[in-house]
């Protein structure tokens, strides 16, 4: 494997039905590269939650993934409204999601807590009116 394999996706904010296609492609790539199944599953869940969040809250954004031997780094950058109270947003059960998101099985206030649960590192840079960048690093725990 070269130093890093990079993948970039424009996540469409208008098409809720298509949300998850970037995560799906990343999962497939990780599998094809022979990454350990445990890491593949955690990375897929983290990216999918992030992708759904970008669609629900920020009208889409850009997802960048760097795959290295033994680790995956996922960066999700949006130009959405920003998160006013990050501590509150990290609490399980707190959500500001729309009725539409709830009807689709999301918006239960689990997205960010799930990312924290499954990522080895989670960093959130957010500024009101400017946007949010979520960076997650996941490492092969079997190494």
């Amino acid at each position, binding site marked *: 494997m070269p130093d890093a394999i990079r993948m970039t996706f424009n996540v469409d904010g208008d098409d*809720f*039905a*298509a*949300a*998850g296609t970037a*995560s*799906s492609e990343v*999962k497939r790539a990780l599998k094809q590269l022979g990454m350990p*199944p445990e890491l593949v*599953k955690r990375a*897929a*869940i983290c990216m*999918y*939650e992030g992708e*759904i969040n970008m669609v629900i809250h920020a009208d889409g954004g850009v997802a960048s993934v760097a795959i290295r031997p033994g680790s995956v780094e996922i960066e999700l950058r949006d130009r959405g409204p920003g998160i006013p109270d990050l501590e509150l947003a990290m609490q399980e059960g707190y959500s500001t999601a729309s009725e539409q998101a709830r*009807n*689709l*099985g*999301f*918006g*239960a*206030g*689990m*997205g960010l*807590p*799930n990312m924290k*649960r499954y990522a080895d590192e989670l960093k959130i840079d957010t500024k009101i009116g400017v946007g949010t960048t979520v960076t997650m690093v996941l490492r092969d725990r079997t190494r």
Partner: protein
Amino acid sequence: MRIREIQKLIDARLLCGEHLLDEEIHNVCGSDLMSDVLAFSNGQMLITGLVNPQVIRTAEMVDIRCIVFARDKTPDAGMIELAREKDMAVMTCRGSMFDVCGVLYQHGLRGEE
């Protein structure tokens, strides 16, 4: 338990994934909340009453092999195509989620480990 046996027990109609009928299911997740499925599922089957493409996507992320839609909920052609692409079996049955879970539990299947 094999998917084939489950299909018979809950009298379900198979919509795709016939070649997966001999796959073994050990743990089952019953939920309409996809965030919960993402948070806690390590099962191979999902029973749900929610019908939208994100159900298939969620199942894909957590390696679920078979989805059962309760109360005769029927996914559209696009959802079935997506499930086919992701190599999943999809079934629909008349029973409620409670009843389907009850029948499968009675026959030895369990929730998440």
